[in-house]
């Protein structure tokens, strides 16, 4: 992977983000010892170590006032098929924090901080391979779209205290509403995602 590509696409506070992600895993492990695979932890550790020097150099170059220019950037080709894809989606979620009111020109409100945290937890707890997009909604929530090559999809909207999603797969379409954030609901969502 080329250094230039990485420095272009990881944002200025990535070191902090990665640290936060790891702290989340530690906290979650304490409460749900079996819910986080060791491989995730290892991946985060490895990627944090690998990226730290690189990201520190980015930190020095970027201006402190980073605006929406950095939000919704194209996934670099080098990231798409690499183990860094999870970090990429995590950084995309963090970037949504920077959206201001009326980010869609139609009067949308800012993304709510609790929705950011919930979206991070979901990306860290579920299979991220088929994530096609992560984006903000006008009412401050976040959507994640999973889609495979057979056009089977899962559309999830993440709120402050609950989530709802549809599952559109060959065997039928399923709807889940008002799902609270818990190990059980993550597990159910994961089982649907694994069908893709």
């Amino acid at each position: 992977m080329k250094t230039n590509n990485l420095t272009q696409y990881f944002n200025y506070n990535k070191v902090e983000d990665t640290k936060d992600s790891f702290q989340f895993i530690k906290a979650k492990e304490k409460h749900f010892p079996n819910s986080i695979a060791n491989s995730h932890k290892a991946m985060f550790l490895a990627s944090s170590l690998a990226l730290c020097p690189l990201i520190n150099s980015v930190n020095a170059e970027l201006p402190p006032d980073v605006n929406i220019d950095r939000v919704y950037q194209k996934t670099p080709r080098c990231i798409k098929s690499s183990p860094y894809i999870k970090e990429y989606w995590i950084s995309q979620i963090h970037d949504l924090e920077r959206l201001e009111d009326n980010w869609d020109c139609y009067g949308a409100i800012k993304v709510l901080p609790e929705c950011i945290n919930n979206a991070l937890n979901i990306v860290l707890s579920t299979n991220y391979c088929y994530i096609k997009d992560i984006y903000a909604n006008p009412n401050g929530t976040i959507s994640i779209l999973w889609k495979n090559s057979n056009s089977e999809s899962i559309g999830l909207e993440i709120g402050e205290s609950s989530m709802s999603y549809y599952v559109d797969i060959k065997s039928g379409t399923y709807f889940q509403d008002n799902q609270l954030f818990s190990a059980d609901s993550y597990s159910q969502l994961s089982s649907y995602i694994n069908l893709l």
Partner: protein
Amino acid sequence: MCHIPQAVSDTETILRTIFSPANVNPNTNKIRSNLFKPQIAKADEDDNTIYSNKVSVTRYDYVDIEFCRSHAKRHSSPSKNRNYWGFAQLIVQDVRNFNVDVIAKPSKDNPAHANIVYPFKLYISNALKGVPLDSKTQKIIQDITEKANIFIDPNPNSPQWTGQSF
């Protein structure tokens, strides 16, 4: 501009302005369903007891593309990276097939304005900020999004539309 009937025909073409990057997936250049999501954290323009269940569109059969472009550019904010990017085109029948209506709502700056009206009513009692839409409505909005034809404006600063013809 010709006379615009109040009744919206099933065969009419409607356009919704796409702004980038908010409404466009940069990896696929496909539009996101947030383009067709109503501002449900805000009161409805016609009924202040419910949250908005509408999104704005323009009835293209009664205007020309330059009207749509200038209207879109007035609402964009390039300085804040909210750029006019193009239009999503739908046939009214395609929307109504999902039990979602299209109703004329002329405005001062757009006499061809109409609203896509979703069949849900969320009464204003509790704050709806940060509350997800129900999954069936999400699916309908995703399906409508996938029905839309996308017309990218290749040169938004050009005085004339230079993109694919509608």
